[in-house]
């Protein structure tokens, strides 16, 4: 028989049997074999895997002293050489969930398969959704044994390199990754079935977990525009006529900067829009300022309502742009503007 799979289990101070909040600052420590819920986990793993050690740390210690906790976990993993790491389950305990997620990330960075368990709204998931394989739990720790069984199953699959099915079928929290599958039924049949189940208050599984949206807090308004340097950013595909940089009409991955220090207004002789997502007829034959109102901003500058227009404007095409490209370009434009002490930006959406 092959050698049993070596598992390291992570628990917080409470489940590790050290105590409650009073022990929340306990540093990372190891105990041999399974501890507390680890015994049930060992039962679930059966003779296929052995818990060779249990790491325990206080919840506050792990989250507040992360710089010390991480190397300690790393050192213990190097020493115990596990084939898999199982953390928790943490249910809805936020600090514990974060610690479990951190432990899993440390293991993953060492190519050790890691599984945890927690509520889908646990801070551990909200912070590290993409990095963590977590059995989806409720808030009721009396379900512990069933959860541990699921965690054991997933951990063994991961160690053996078995490809995991969709989150809903395997019982883990979606990691943000979407993958195509072939269903047994057509989409319109599934839609009608799902609707019938919902109307009858029967269980159903939505095929989309709508997470991963950036929650952007708008910047506070500028107190006084008179002292403000204003930057101009446009996704309207505006370029000097001829498009020397070959800005694309859709799916842009680049932005360009154009000098406008001596420009009072955008004219159709000098400028054009190469945007492929809307009718550019008016912009390109009448007035490009609709896509970036330079003439108006210059008026405000001359009248002293704003201090200055930043001498370059940033231009890209906002049409079928990938989220990751948009995020990167936005970050780069923002860094450059802030480094050059621009106070506010007029971003013209198209």
């Amino acid at each position: 028989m092959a050698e049993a799979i070596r598992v390291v289990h992570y628990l917080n101070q409470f489940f590790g049997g050290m105590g409650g909040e009073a022990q929340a600052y306990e540093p990372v420590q190891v105990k041999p074999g399974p501890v507390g819920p680890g015994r049930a986990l060992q039962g679930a793993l059966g003779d296929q895997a052995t818990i060779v050690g249990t790491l325990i740390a206080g919840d506050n210690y792990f989250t507040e002293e992360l710089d010390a906790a991480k190397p300690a976990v790393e050192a213990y993993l190097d020493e115990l050489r596990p084939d898999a790491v199982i953390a928790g389950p943490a249910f809805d305990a936020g600090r514990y969930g974060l610690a479990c997620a951190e432990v899993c990330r440390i293991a993953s960075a060492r190519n050790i398969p890691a599984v945890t368990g927690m509520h889908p709204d646990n801070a551990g998931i909200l912070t590290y959704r993409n990095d963590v394989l977590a059995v989806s739990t409720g808030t009721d720790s009396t379900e512990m044994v069933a959860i541990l069984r699921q965690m054991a199953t997933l951990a063994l699959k991961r160690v053996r390199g078995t490809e995991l099915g969709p989150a809903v079928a395997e019982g883990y929290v979606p990691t943000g990754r979407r993958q195509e599958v072939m269903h047994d039924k057509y989409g319109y049949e599934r839609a009608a079935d799902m609707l019938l189940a919902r109307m009858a208050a029967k269980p159903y599984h939505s095929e989309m977990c709508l997470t991963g949206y950036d929650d952007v807090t708008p910047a506070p308004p500028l107190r006084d525009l008179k002292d403000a340097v204003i930057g101009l950013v446009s996704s309207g595909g505006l370029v000097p006529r001829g498009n020397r940089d070959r800005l694309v009409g859709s799916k842009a991955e680049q932005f360009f900067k154009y000098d406008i220090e001596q420009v009072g207004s955008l004219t159709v002789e000098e400028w054009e829009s190469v945007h492929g997502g809307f009718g550019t007829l008016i912009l390109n034959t009448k007035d490009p300022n609709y896509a970036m109102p330079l003439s108006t901003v210059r008026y405000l500058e001359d009248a002293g309502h704003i201090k200055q227009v930043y001498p370059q404007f940033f231009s890209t095409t906002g049409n079928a742009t990938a989220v990751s490209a948009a995020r990167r370009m936005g970050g780069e434009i923002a860094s450059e503007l802030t480094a050059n002490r621009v106070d506010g930006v007029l971003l013209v959406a198209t």
Partner: protein
Amino acid sequence: MKLEVGTFPVHDIVFGTQTRWQDGVLSVDKDELLALVMEDPYIAWADIDVTRPGDSVRIVQIRDIVEPKVKVSGPGVTYPGISGRDVTTVGQGRTHRLGGMTLIACSEMPGFNPDGAHWWGTTSVEGRSDITFIDMSGPGAVTPFAHTINLCLQMEPHQESYADDWNRASNAAVLKLNDRLAETTRGFEPHEITTYDLDYRDNALPNIVFVPALASAEYRFGPRTSLGTNVYGIGRLTEPWLLQPTEMIDGAVFGTYMEHFTWPIMETIVPHLCSRHGQEFNFVGCIVVRSNWEAQAEKQLMANRAAQMASALGANGAIVTTNQRGQRFVETVLTVQALERVGVDTVLMTEEEDNENGNAPPLLMSVPEIVSAVSTGTGGVEVTFPRVDRVLGLRQPDPIWYEEKPPIHGRYGVTHLHDFYGFGKQGCMDF
């Protein structure tokens, strides 16, 4: 409304000296059909070809796909309002259809309209038409039209044509063929009759509505444009339309928004929901939300009006779809939200965006009210499309059309399947 749909199965289409349907074989007098098409002075050249499942054929430059249908009793004509057709309310009496086949209109689109407005794609660096093709065999034969016998009407406009005019001409031509071919069934008893009796209601069952958001091309081509999806021939932005499901089956929505066809509405989702009417739910209506409004308030108002209509119909549930993502998706999502807020359980079915390896969410926008969603995938087809022997759609296809085509990675603006209505079994799931 009560509609009988009589099906005349088409197992093969052959060219002959007479145009007629007999025992599952549609015989086509090509000269007769071409003469009909060439009556229109806009059309400079036309040809007709047949392709069957399994052929080494690629159909390109697809303008629209329709199933031949004719009304043999009851008011109106099929595909009403298009290119000057009668706008009498359809959806009653009996419609004959040629089942198992489609009519596909193919042509290159002129790039511009008289006012200089350019047709979609003409300024994009990557043209959408490059990925809208139908392979009839091989691993890429994944669209429903790879499984039907297709009569391809290939046309060329005169050089000086404009996009909108050409679209009218193309629609008129394909509907002339529709009428001529489906007309062959008049006077014969269908192989099979399906009766959609939507007047019958079972009060013990929940009521559902189908709410497709259909993009209008008005923002780009003006209110009288024929481009985009039309309702009884009207493409402009209007408040939501209330249509009976049987009107949809008779072709009350018609036309393509870019290359997003209405065939799946008429031939898949609406007949499917009709087939479950009176058994599992009452299918009480279709609410067509026009999308592409320019202001947020307009989008919100249309969503609110659709929800108000659903309420007035006594709907308990709704299936909401879209036919183009991007800004059109705002109306779609707001409609889901508005329906949920008036207490209508709503399933959103849609194609989704590229996940970018876990870095991007599935939909352009989301609201907490979206709790039941069906994914039809990203529109991509991750297989290589092998080289083909024959290309249909153009008089002289560029040699590039014959070549092997790389896999298509689905994302916004890149959809090969155009599956907004769940005609396929593919879908993305969370992993």
